[in-house]
């Protein structure tokens, strides 16, 4: 009777709890490992010294007061989009349409500024633009949410397609309003009159955006953690059947959550036109609808944690802009580095949630058997 059945080499179990310290150590380790891999990739493909590349990325993000403000602006915009998407994902509603919802807000604000720029005072104009862009963003989120709630329509693709619809409508209006004719751009809106431009608080153009982003983040933190709505959407996300069982109207929660998401995205679009960029292009949203998904997920839908994950993303984007100018590289190099870091951080979640047991050496086992 010589049964040689081997125990598997690796045995995996779910972890119950993991100390916060260890959790963060694993994450930091993943980011460090990713940076090493990125350094190898950088040297192999471009023959540049990776430390010089990282140094210039740091320089590009934090090098001067102007650069820090630009970083803060990017951070605020990305953070607002991520915070907007968080409740939807917590509800397991895959809203990939954050970009489209932002563009709806952008279009609404631009429309108000161009059509009514010289017809009303600055305050009513800004209020009108704010209200219409909130409504537009909410509408763009409401349509797929309604179909999902009513007929269980696939929301992932629906919201994705809404992005392209929004982009094409924006492209249409850019041609209608292009200035000068034939340029394919609408340039800076109301450059001389500054009608519809938000004020520069304390002389800083981006101060207002930063403050609004902080307010929205804190609001969402409280909304998710302490409000009844936040509780309901968490239950819906965990189990729709449980939600139905305890008397939560699932359809209503889905629509309500997505409208909130659309409102914040619409607000972001309003800020993009009225406070930061003062123009409308088809790429104004700049892929932040997708990036926001990853930011929200990396932070486990905790708005405060999103500040960190958004900072990481923005740092990569700003930094890669700097290396593209400093080393004459294509700007997309940053996307490669961001992708590698994401792979590592996504992979590291496994080591937070699961524990690996290696097979004990057979010698020790025999001894134990005896």
């Amino acid at each position: 009777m010589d049964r040689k059945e081997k125990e598997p080499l690796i045995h995996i179990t779910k972890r119950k709890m993991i100390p916060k310290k260890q959790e963060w150590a694993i994450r930091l380790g993943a980011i460090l490992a990713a940076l090493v891999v990125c350094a190898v990739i950088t040297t192999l493909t471009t023959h540049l010294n990776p430390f010089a590349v990282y140094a210039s990325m740091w320089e590009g993000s934090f090098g001067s007061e102007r650069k820090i403000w630009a970083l803060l602006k990017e951070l605020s915009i990305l953070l607002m989009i991520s915070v907007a998407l968080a409740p939807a994902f917590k509800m397991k509603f895959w809203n990939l349409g954050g970009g489209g919802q932002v563009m709806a807000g952008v279009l609404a604000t631009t429309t108000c500024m161009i059509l009514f720029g010289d017809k009303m005072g600055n305050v009513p104009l800004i209020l009108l633009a704010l209200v219409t862009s909130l409504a537009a963003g909410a509408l763009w989120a409401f349509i797929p949410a309604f179909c999902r709630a009513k007929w269980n329509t696939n929301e992932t693709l629906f919201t994705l397609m809404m992005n392209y619809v929004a982009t094409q409508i924006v492209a249409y209006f850019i041609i209608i309003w292009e200035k000068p004719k034939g340029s394919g751009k609408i340039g800076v809106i109301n450059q001389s009159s500054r009608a519809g431009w938000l004020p520069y608080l304390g002389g800083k153009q981006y101060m207002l955006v930063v403050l609004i982003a902080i307010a929205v983040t804190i609001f969402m933190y409280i909304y998710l953690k302490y409000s009844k709505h936040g509780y309901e959407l968490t239950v819906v996300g965990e189990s729709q059947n449980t939600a139905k069982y305890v008397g939560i109207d699932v359809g209503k929660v889905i629509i309500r959550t997505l409208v909130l998401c659309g409102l914040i995205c619409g607000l972001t679009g309003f800020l993009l036109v009225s406070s930061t960029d003062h123009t409308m292009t088809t790429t104004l949203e700049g892929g932040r609808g997708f990036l926001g998904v990853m930011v929200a997920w990396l932070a486990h839908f905790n708005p405060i944690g999103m500040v960190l994950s958004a900072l990481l993303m923005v740092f990569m984007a700003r930094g890669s802009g700097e290396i593209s100018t400093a080393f004459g590289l294509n700007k997309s190099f940053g996307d490669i580095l961001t992708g590698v870091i994401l792979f590592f951080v996504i992979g590291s979640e496994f080591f937070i949630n699961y524990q690996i047991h290696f097979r004990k050496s057979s010698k020790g086992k025999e001894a134990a058997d005896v």
Partner: protein
Amino acid sequence: MFSLITFLPRAIVQSVPLLLGCVGETLNEKSGSLNLGIPGVMYVGAISGVIGSFFYETSAGENFNPVIGIIIPLVTCLLGSLMMGLIFCLLTVTLRANQNVTGLAMTTFGVGFGNFFGGSIIKLTGADVPSIALSATSKAFKTSLPFADKAGVAGDLLLSYGFMTYVAILIAVITSFVLKKTRTGLELRAVGENPATADAAGININRYKYFSICIGCMIAGLGGLYYVMDYANGVWSNDAFGDRGWLAIALVIFSIWRPNWAVWESMLFGGLYILYLYIPTGANFAMKEIYKMLPYIVTIIMLIAISLRNKHENQPPEGLGLPYFREDR
């Protein structure tokens, strides 16, 4: 002037990348993996093929051999997309990461990878050419049967394409057959529908997932290669591939996870994609932007229509999007 004879072949050429992407994604989804990284995979497939043929074309010069010129980009394209497939498998199957997030990260990475190497390979290699225009390779890819020109209308419609068009349709039909009629297909579908049951039946879940995801990604990568070599005449331009990867994922739902249906539906979408070029708008260029919306609007309408006709056999694989952990209950 609108002419069906000129429109249809162009629609079919448009349809091939969508079809290959769709077949690849179907294989992914049948194993229970919703791979939103397909757009990125197609970019990587395309640029890997371009890099391969770029090196061959610049080194071969006058002695360009069309057969080798086709094989090298095919192999590099398959290798590139295989790498992407392995990344997805490693993260979602072995490490049980969230599929949607991994997919989006892969798309970010893949599009960046394509645009970076597409935009800077000339600078990086110090080659003496102004832009990536792989005309010799593209010509080899586009070679159609010699008698196609003489066969009149039927020749234009059926025979005027490069070999990859036919390969794509063949891949779709074979995939359909394998999924539906073979034991391998049955077991793969079992893995996608209910991994716990499949596991209990003694099917090696991870092996099936790895193989179907990797093969699916390689098929999708070919779609990217086709776009550059056949459609774009071997000219790489950044972001030109656009949103075709996402439409390919949408096509999976319309074809109700049946690759042989996807052949026709991809042609329909190929047509919608270029219809704006054929609708007369005169000097009103703005209207063209509205017509470009057509494929997306049709996608949305089809999504709603399918969800309204809530038939049992039209549902996605039940285990779609869920990582499998044997010890979970």
